[in-house]
């Protein structure tokens, strides 16, 4: 017989979350033997790079949108920000190739695949707004080239790449929040469904 406390939304939500993702699944001590391959390290490499991107971005935000042009420390942090982004995309694309090759959407993992794909697209948009927020000739060139493409879609009415303030806000607030939330959701989906087994392993198990 359920009590009033059992029926309240906090109790029901807690029971549902714990049933779907118990603590030993959320933070497992071991992984299946097939995970012992270099192809499985690129997801966590991407997240480590994302951590450096966010940390260096927070440092860059401390003193406004132009200080890294005139300060050697700012130039150094700006370079760390750029190169961590390079590693981020380098690792994420190899992660994508690996997961595509092993058809990682198998076994009810379609949402894991979809969240990863959307995270990839949001990351590209985040990088793009970063390029047009550099406050140099490079960013002016990219913005003036991109405006024609975006205006041809009608999107320029809402997303004006020549508006530095708008691009910077998208780059440091909206898109990073989206990218991080999607990454968290992606990792939670991996925890819920488990790491996808190799195709050979699945065939052997089902035979």
């Amino acid at each position, binding site marked *: 017989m359920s009590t009033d406390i059992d029926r309240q939304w906090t109790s029901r939500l807690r029971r549902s979350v714990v049933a779907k993702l118990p603590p030993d699944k959320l933070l497992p001590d*071991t*992984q*299946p*033997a097939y*995970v*012992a*391959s*270099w*192809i499985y*390290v*690129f997801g966590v490499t991407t997240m480590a790079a994302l951590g450096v991107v966010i940390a260096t971005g927070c440092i860059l935000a401390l003193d406004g949108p132009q200080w890294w042009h005139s300060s050697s420390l700012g130039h150094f942090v700006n370079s760390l920000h750029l190169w961590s982004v390079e590693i981020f995309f*380098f690792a994420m*694309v*190899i992660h994508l*190739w*690996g997961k595509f090759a092993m058809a990682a959407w198998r076994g009810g993992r379609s949402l894991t695949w979809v969240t990863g794909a959307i995270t990839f697209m949001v990351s590209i948009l985040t990088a793009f707004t970063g390029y047009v927020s550099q406050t140099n000739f490079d960013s002016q060139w990219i913005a003036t080239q991109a405006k024609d493409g975006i205006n041809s879609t009608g999107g320029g009415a809402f997303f004006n790449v020549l508006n530095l303030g708008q691009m910077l806000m998208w780059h440091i607030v909206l898109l990073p929040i989206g990218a991080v939330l999607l990454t968290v959701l992606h990792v939670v989906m991996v925890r819920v469904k488990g790491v996808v087994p190799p195709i050979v392993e699945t065939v052997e198990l089902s035979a």
Partner: protein
Amino acid sequence: MAQGWGLGALINLNHYGHYLQWHVFSISVANLLVIIVMIATFVAALVAPFPGRRNRKGPQ
């Protein structure tokens, strides 16, 4: 100029990029090199032995 120390001493990056052109396709040498390194890394990740794999006892 940062040129003269660090990587700048090994590779002179202070010039316009080199581009390869084939019909309508155009790519900078730098981007092509990154793509080649990515493909090489992907292949290496598939074939390189993972340390401790033989001794690993995880759930199957």
